[in-house]
């Protein structure tokens, strides 16, 4: 498989990046949900809640799912191949 195919189908990122993606998922989605609820109940308008959730959840999808370069800062250093006798 070419590098482009690997990028498209697997989108690999390193382990520190995976942890970062997991944290971003958890904090972004739960905080946006709580804040959207509070904004809606204080302003008395449920469409505010719905639209802020839609906007931020879509932005979060773009941030988390695609293999951005900031997820690849701590690449594993593979040892050079050993010579076979």
């Amino acid at each position, binding site marked *: 498989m070419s590098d482009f195919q690997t990028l498209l*189908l*697997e*989108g*690999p*990122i390193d382990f520190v990046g*995976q*942890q970062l*993606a*997991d944290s971003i*998922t*958890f904090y972004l*989605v*739960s905080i946006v*949900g709580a804040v*959207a*609820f509070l904004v*809606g*109940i204080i*302003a*008395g*308008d*449920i469409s505010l*809640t719905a639209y802020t*959730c839609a906007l931020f*959840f879509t932005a*979060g*999808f773009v941030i*988390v*799912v*695609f*293999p951005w370069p900031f997820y690849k800062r701590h690449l594993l250093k593979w040892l050079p191949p050993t010579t076979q006798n």
Partner: protein
Amino acid sequence: MFSIFQRIQQYCGFVTTVTVFLTAAISISSLIQEHFFISIPRASINLQSIDVRFGKPHLGYNYKRQEYALMRFDLDADLTPLFTWNTKQLFVYLAATYPGKPYSNKVIVWDTIIQDKEDAVISLQDATADYSIYDVTGKFNGRNATLSLEWNVQPYVGLLTWNKGIERHRFEFPQLKQAR
């Protein structure tokens, strides 16, 4: 989170979970608001006239000739307290309840849908009922009946709630005037 598909699955699954909690919180908060913080709306009904006729109550095939009642009424109601942030629309209707064997009867004679808080003040003078009342036995026999205003609050998320209005108006079905 090692591949794109993994991340899509994890992210969308967590968004679904948070959305479920959010809708539960919205519906519970609006139910609490409806029960404890909202004053009961006031309404008054006045039955102007009720007319019992003999014939087919609707145009159409297979309706037999029987007694049916047409009503004219006044209705004043202020339903603005029922609109919370979670209220999508109100289904408001006038129902006539009268006894029968073996079960009592309840017929809706007029209804309306209110979608905005500004439209929630109803003020009708001498309005005709949308639907006529006709009994399964074909006769009214001068029974007593009660006319009450009821509403169904339909939320964006959560449980539907029905409530009876506090305004009732008692009346009798008058006897048929002319001979059949």
